[in-house]
């Protein structure tokens, strides 16, 4: 028997004890509704002195309330030999023989259930203070008996503090494989992904040594092992090339291509974690990759004649943004505005920002007379405008700055500096914002209470050099304001300024606030 329980409860656990205990919890401890609260306030007073606030306890054997502070409950226990009482504030069970609060598994189970019920009730009734559907109350993790044993047998503990190298590790370059190393660094420092793998959530259904998700899991183990020598990701390379043959060839490859290919293979191999849903349909998959990376992009095509809108929503893992300096004109951001703009040249002062790129991405685009769309309202081909907005934002948003131009005429790298922020608010680019703008409501007010669309930068992949030969490095964020530069096997500390001044090729942002679904 564990030290927390005591044998004196056995005298209580007879007959209909469970139901009796439930009633006590429901009426006198966890008050879920306004009426039960009133009843508790009125009826729970000490039978000796009438006090209602000095740590009232209820006897478990009879109807008696006594205060703890003035020992009235103790007197009752002694005189009546009723040796168990319950604290009406927090529901703890006190044993007068042990002279301490005890924790009995069965009784705690009942307490937890009643508490959960009361919490749920609170959510629906008091709509003033609690939003509807408050859901589950958060409870901290507690180890199970087996876990406790394991933890006590293995007392050496590693903690990730701000001055700790655990979680950071270099990666050996296997021969121009920096395109892979930079993505691995970004993925291993994605907080939700890290939590998923370190809590061992992957259940593998594939043949041994053929699953990329298992290899990812192994990678996290390597990164958090505390080893200082760089890791050799040869198994990872082998698995990715085996499952994504289109990446064939070891010549200089694109990190963005590798990211998409890797996410795709991981998503396919997550079948075991899918809760039975089909992994083939990207809209209904529930694997960790989809939960973290998949967003929904809404495309609205508006007929210029009848103004009918045709809407489609496509899933995406990343947003590819055009840059000024490419052969497609960047400015103006919307058709007809800012007549002073010359093709391809910016008249705006200051550097281009990520927000500029996003505004361009979500601008209404005139599809010319050569690209008429069949309008179901007009039943004929008409000119139209197309506009992209975000329908659903992923938890991790990856922005790909299209720096590599592969047009028919030229192959070159666009090195235009684009400034990107540490914190990003995606609200202006949401489909819902566009709707309210169209309805005449301007959401210009600082909606600081709406935290849904706020993102924080946590990884930046950079490319140095030319299109033919270059090198990828990554800046990653380990703690709130600690950044590190990952250059293959060399990991060094970096300043926020280093990160924000860098050119930027792939930008990884993480949602700041996560909601329960």
């Amino acid at each position: 028997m564990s030290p927390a329980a005591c044998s004196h409860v056995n005298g209580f656990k007879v007959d209909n004890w469970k139901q009796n205990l439930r009633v006590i919890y429901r009426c006198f401890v966890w008050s879920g509704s306004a009426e039960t609260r009133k009843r508790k306030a009125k009826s729970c007073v000490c039978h000796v002195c009438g006090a209602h606030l000095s740590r009232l306890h209820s006897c478990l054997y009879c109807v008696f309330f006594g205060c703890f502070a003035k020992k009235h409950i103790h007197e009752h226990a002694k005189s009546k030999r009723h040796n168990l009482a319950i604290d009406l504030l927090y529901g703890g069970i006190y044993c007068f023989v042990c002279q301490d609060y005890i924790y009995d598994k069965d009784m705690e189970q009942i307490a937890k259930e009643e508490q959960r019920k009361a919490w749920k009730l609170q959510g629906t009734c008091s709509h003033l203070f609690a939003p509807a559907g408050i859901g589950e109350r958060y409870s901290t993790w507690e180890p199970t008996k087996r876990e406790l044993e394991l933890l006590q047998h293995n007392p050496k503990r590693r903690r990730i503090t701000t001055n700790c190298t655990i979680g950071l590790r270099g990666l050996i370059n296997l021969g121009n494989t920096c395109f892979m190393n930079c993505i691995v660094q970004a993925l291993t420092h994605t907080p939700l992904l890290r939590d998923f793998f370190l809590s061992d959530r992957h259940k593998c259904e594939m043949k041994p040594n053929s699953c990329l998700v298992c290899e990812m899991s192994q990678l996290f183990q390597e990164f958090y092992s505390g080893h200082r020598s760089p890791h050799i990701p040869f198994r990872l390379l082998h698995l990715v090339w085996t499952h994504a043959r289109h990446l064939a060839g070891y010549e200089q490859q694109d990190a963005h291509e590798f990211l998409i290919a890797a996410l795709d293979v991981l998503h396919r191999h997550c079948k075991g974690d899918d809760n039975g849903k089909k992994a083939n349909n990207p809209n209904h998959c529930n694997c960790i990759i989809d939960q973290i990376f998949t967003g929904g992009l809404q495309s609205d095509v508006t007929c210029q004649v009848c103004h009918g809108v045709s809407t489609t929503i496509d899933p995406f893992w990343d947003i590819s943004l055009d840059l000024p300096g490419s052969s497609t004109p960047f400015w103006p951001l919307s058709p007809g505005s800012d007549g002073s703009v010359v093709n391809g040249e910016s008249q705006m002062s200051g550097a281009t920002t990520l927000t500029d790129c996003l505004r361009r991405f979500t601008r209404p685009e005139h599809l010319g007379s050569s690209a008429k769309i069949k309008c179901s309202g007009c039943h004929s081909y008409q000119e139209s405008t197309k506009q992209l907005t975000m329908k659903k934002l992923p938890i991790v948003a990856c922005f790909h700055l299209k720096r590599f131009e592969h047009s028919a005429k030229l192959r070159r790298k666009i090195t235009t500096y684009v400034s990107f922020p540490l914190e990003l608010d995606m609200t202006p680019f949401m489909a819902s914002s566009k709707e309210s703008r169209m309805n005449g409501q301007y959401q210009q007010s600082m909606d600081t209470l709406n935290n849904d669309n706020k993102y924080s930068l946590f990884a930046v992949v950079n490319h140095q050099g030319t299109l033919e030969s270059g090198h990828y490095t990554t800046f990653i964020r380990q703690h709130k304001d600690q950044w590190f530069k990952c250059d293959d096997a060399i990991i060094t500390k970096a300043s926020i300024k280093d990160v924000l001044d860098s050119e930027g090729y792939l930008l990884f942002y993480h949602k700041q606030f996560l909601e329960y679904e």
Partner: protein
Amino acid sequence: MKMEEMSLLGLDNTKLESIAHEIYSDLVEDACLGLCFEVHRAVKQGYFFLDETDIESMKDFEIVDQPGVDIFGEVYNQWKNKECVCPNCSRSIAASRFAPHLEKCLGMGRNSSRIANRRIASSNNVNKSESDQEDNDDLNDNDWSYGSEKRAKKRKSDKVFLFSLKCFLESLWQPVVSGLYPT
């Protein structure tokens, strides 16, 4: 203190303030009590001291922030002689040359088809020298550059000579060999 209903109307500010203060201090006390219960439970259930770390060994993991060394305090570029085992052919390969090796090993990329064609072409010339050539190609990791083709040809003639010599020697040892390794 007995509980009784009272109206808040007609009370002056000081009285209201003292009531508010009373409620506030009750709430603070209750919150503190809650914390006490949490700690008490954690200690009794045995998981309170679980996250104590060993201060001495934590020192090993401190981040180093000095020029010329990485966060582990190591000098740059000292990881030269790492090796790994190819999951495809089980050979031990130098880590920094693993990617080009894997490309050939898996038969991917434009270089591999070139090498494969060359092998097919040369196997029509000399019998049984295929396997020798394969060994040669894998050891010579510079296959993807054009210069090495000449070197490979030269070695081929050496190999033909050695092969003939090997056949001759084998014919001498044949009875002994078959005695040692019965088929």
